[in-house]
């Protein structure tokens, strides 16, 4: 093999893959085109405008710096690529009290506001695409439970927020008997130690940002039917 053939072959083989599988797709996907609700099919009309609130940029940084992506993923795969949709709470809820089946796979708008989509490496822990909704649901259920348990003694100041639950989990992932199996590391270095015994540890700004970021991950909005490959919903009564 001469040097000329060798050089040409090297550039042709690597260059074509580099161009067509990496560089061109990268620049072609830089600007995502808006998706519209279709008249007659969707309940809404106009352009799909996904909303995501919370300290996303700062929280994503804390998430990245502490390597959460090693054990957690952020993608709900369509059914052809995995069974993620069927996992309880991962893709939405099968029986949402208001909207019925809200499960859907990840779409390109779910990652807005982030510089790097933390798809993740391994799933030692559960997927986090919908962790915000899961914690909201848990908080509501917990409050309902306490309300019935306490009866008249209950007042609204006793309410637990999803933030508080998530902070508790971050401080000690194995705090509940049902979570004893968890191998999640504690990030208690993101908290200030309590000034005296009996007080709860107060979160540092990083912990608040992380919680804001995690709670912003929800799959609770209505997406256009053209983007929704979830199992077909039963016809409205």
């Amino acid at each position, binding site marked *: 093999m001469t040097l000329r053939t060798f050089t040409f072959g090297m550039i042709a083989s690597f260059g074509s893959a580099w161009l067509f599988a990496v560089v061109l*797709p990268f620049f072609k996907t830089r600007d995502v085109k808006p998706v519209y609700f279709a008249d007659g099919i969707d309940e809404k009309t106009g352009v799909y405008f996904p909303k995501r609130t919370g300290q996303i940029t700062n929280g994503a940084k804390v998430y990245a710096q502490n390597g959460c992506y090693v054990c957690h993923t952020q993608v709900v795969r*369509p059914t052809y690529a*995995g069974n993620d949709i069927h996992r309880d709470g991962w893709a939405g809820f099968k029986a949402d009290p208001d909207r019925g089946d809200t499960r859907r796979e990840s779409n390109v708008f779910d990652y807005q506001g982030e510089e790097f989509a933390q*798809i993740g490496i391994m799933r030692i822990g559960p997927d986090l695409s919908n962790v915000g909704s899961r914690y909201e649901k848990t908080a509501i259920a917990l409050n309902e439970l306490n309300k019935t348990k306490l009866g008249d003694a209950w007042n609204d100041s006793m309410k637990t927020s999803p933030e508080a639950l998530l902070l508790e989990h971050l401080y000690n992932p194995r705090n509940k008997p049902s979570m004893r199996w968890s*191998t999640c590391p504690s990030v208690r270095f993101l908290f200030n130690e309590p000034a005296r015994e009996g007080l709860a540890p107060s979160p540092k700004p990083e912990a608040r940002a992380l919680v804001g970021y995690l709670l912003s991950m929800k799959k609770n909005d209505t997406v256009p039917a053209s983007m929704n490959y979830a199992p077909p919903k039963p016809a409205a009564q």
Partner: protein
Amino acid sequence: MSQEIKQSAEQDAILRTTIDRSLRHPVMFFFTSGAAWLAVSLILGIIATAKMVSPEFMDGCAWFTQGRVFAAHISTLVYGWGCQAAFGVLIWLIARLTRQENRASGIILAAGHAWNLLIAVGTFSILAGYGTGVPWMEFPTMIWPALLLTYSLIAIWTMIQFRVRTPGEVFVSQWFAVGALVWFPWLVATAFVLVFCVGGNPLMSAGVAAWFRSGITYLFFLPTAAAAAYYLAPKISGRPVHSYSLSLIGFWVLAAVGPWAGMQKLAGAPIPFFLPYMGAAAAVLIGIPTIAIAVSTLRTMTSEPGKFASSPALRFTATGVVCMLILGISSSLTNLPNSTLQLTQFSITQYGMDILAIYGSFSFVMFGAMYFIVPRITRREWLSKRLIKLHFLFSMYGVIAVAVLSVLGGMLHGIGQEDFKFTWDSAVAHAYPYQMATLIAWCFVLFSNFFFFVHLLLMWMRLGRRSSHPTLLGHAHIDSPHGPDGDIDNAGPGSVIAH
């Protein structure tokens, strides 16, 4: 006539000694500091695995939180150990194959120090919580251009040597070596520019990072290992490379298929559909070049059973090539869309494959190359047969355990993940025993590499045996792969007619 042959053989020996001497300091520096980083990486790997098994271990300690330690473990393994071992072997190989002494050893040595400094700063940054969060590119953003610059200082002289060599045929070993030297900066520069400099779609940034990871594995570590294997096998056995056409297939299929692989890790994510499928197809086809490389190098090595049995370099190289074969076949079997890909995409298989690639296939061939190169450049023989055997056995058992447990255990982990009728803790329980076994296996590997590091350090300090008999694993020295008098002419260059 015989006088002429004798004279040219003498000149040959002198030339080889000159080349070896010109590269002694940079190559030994890369090997020794690489081995030190390997030890650091193994300790970090043990901490990371221990924390996966027992999360209470060093819990709540910011510097050693699971995610940071894991990132530091992989980064030191890839850039601290892997890259430095590869640089050492590649610059020596090209110098020997192009038959030119290296005239820039001072610059390479300085660049090597800079590389180590950058890796150290990067690793501390990751542990201190300044990592970027991009898998395999966790070093802070500023480190990357500096690493590229340092790399160009290390590799440019080798590329010049390749360019100005005596014209003629390019050897098989050289294709792979030059391939690795060209693909590495191309991969790093592309990933750095697209992920950190040009703001893109976050998903495509993740896709580029996945492509980069696969590229470093299959287009840098794998060809470097192949280059060393294609050099050592004919050199030690004294036979020509088994099949030229098979090697040709191995190289060009790798070059054509390798760069497409990687994005199968994003199967199901909202990126253009053809990318994950193309990646999966390429990852499946990676089996072909590994089979071609393994068959032709192993056939060459085993063509001389006596030398194969006694040479430590060949023993390590052969094990590395077998691991490469296992890696290629596992890649074919674990990346089938709609069947195994969904089981392995997010299971511990990924880690097992990375370890099989970096430690199993690549590092074993590098150890083989080091057992061959170090005596030549230090002009001392390895001190102890027993230390070499210890290194070999514990490393082999360790890496086989890590790879088999993670790849197969990963499949079961994936089955647990996919079985949505059970709660998530059952999926975690599927992986747990395999992680425990991985921890024990890592301890074996660390144990073996401690002895290797000490042995290498002694060689670097030139405390090796002053002898013309190479340290072999067999009993008799009659089977010496370097002829009855050995290859190391300690009496001075040109005093021994080498093979």
